[in-house]
């Protein structure tokens, strides 16, 4: 009796394996059609801070730090903010993390140009952008649409779906919370902004993200830019950046160093 039971179990396993194999082969073929973006990548700002020249460098304004094509109403707000006498002092106390840092530090599209190292995980069902600061963008490529209106609300990363055109990943992102698009710029969008990206590998060591932001409530026309990433040559793993030991409190309106 025990022998019969064992044989039956083996038969079930064999049948299951036979059923699983075609599915697996199909997925293997799907993987084979995808581009190879393995390895670690970094933004231009990341290259600046790891430059052996040290701290003499400063961040580039970047693409997202440019002047958005505002409509007259938002252009007026932009110009008024530029002339605000308090802005210089506030800029002097800017922090990227820890108490007093802006929430938009961890938002899309800022993370695509901030000083970060990241990994891209490409699968048939989704592509993941895994940032060393902890954020993970999920780009679903399984044919789904964005959630229905009642199932969707604004978040800092928004909701992204994508599809492949040859080896170019086309990403469509909506439902990004209203606010600045970059910590280094002046561009603000409404929660109705629509982001389209075309991500592709230009050569062995370069990725390109052509990003278009359309926000009919604030822009007079779509805002398009090209962001480039370089392969990281001197790391073999993604090292987490955990802001656990912030020693730069703001005291009396100034950044300071706290004793250890």
């Amino acid at each position, binding site marked *: 009796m025990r022998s019969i039971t064992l044989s039956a179990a083996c038969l079930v396993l064999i049948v299951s394996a036979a059923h699983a194999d075609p599915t697996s082969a199909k997925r293997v073929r799907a993987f084979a059609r995808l581009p190879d973006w393995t390895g670690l990548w970094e933004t231009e700002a990341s290259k600046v801070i790891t430059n052996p020249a040290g701290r003499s460098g400063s961040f580039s304004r970047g693409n997202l730090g440019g002047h958005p094509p505002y409509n007259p109403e938002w252009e007026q707000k932009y110009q008024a903010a530029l002339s605000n006498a308090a*802005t210089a002092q506030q800029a002097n106390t800017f922090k990227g993390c820890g108490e007093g840092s802006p929430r938009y530090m961890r938002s899309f599209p800022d993370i695509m140009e901030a000083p970060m190292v990241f990994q891209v995980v490409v699968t048939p069902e989704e592509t993941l952008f895994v940032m060393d600061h902890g954020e993970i963008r999920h780009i679903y490529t399984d044919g789904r649409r964005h959630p229905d209106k009642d199932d969707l609300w604004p978040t800092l990363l928004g909701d992204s779906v994508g599809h492949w055109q040859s080896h170019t990943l086309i990403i469509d992102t909506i439902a990004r919370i209203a606010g600045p698009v970059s910590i280094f*710029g002046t561009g*603000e969008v409404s929660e109705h902004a629509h982001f389209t990206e075309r991500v592709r590998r230009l050569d062995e060591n370069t990725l390109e993200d052509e990003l278009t932001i359309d926000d009919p409530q604030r822009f007079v026309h779509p805002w398009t830019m090209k962001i480039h990433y370089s392969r990281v040559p001197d*790391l073999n793993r993604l090292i987490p950046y955990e802001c656990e030991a912030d020693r730069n409190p703001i005291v009396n309106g100034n950044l300071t160093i706290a004793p250890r």
Partner: protein
Amino acid sequence: MGPSRRLLGVLATLLSTASASGHHSGAMFDAQKTLTLAGNVKAFQWSNPHCWIQLLVPMQGGTVEWSIEMGSTTELYRSGWRPGTLKPGDKVTVLVHPVRDQSPGGAFVSATGADGKPLGKAGAS
């Protein structure tokens, strides 16, 4: 002014003061001044957003503890530093851009060990 416009204004001028540290404005440091600090390591803090050297420096008839701000762990690692590069008691000479408020703190520029050799890749923070 609402928070949105206030933040927009802040961001408008960030670039003039953003340091290469990746964490905060560099305005707190005087990049025009470079001090040379020779002393003994009290502690080497391997952490984010910054690594720190706590350096005991003989000065003013006594010993002053300096807090020297470096880059993040990843930045330092890529610059040749490791968590064990410095140990308590090590003699080092460190160049810093001092903080503007006259407190004993500064931004790391470079360091050499007791043997006179640079620590990490020369000039890396």
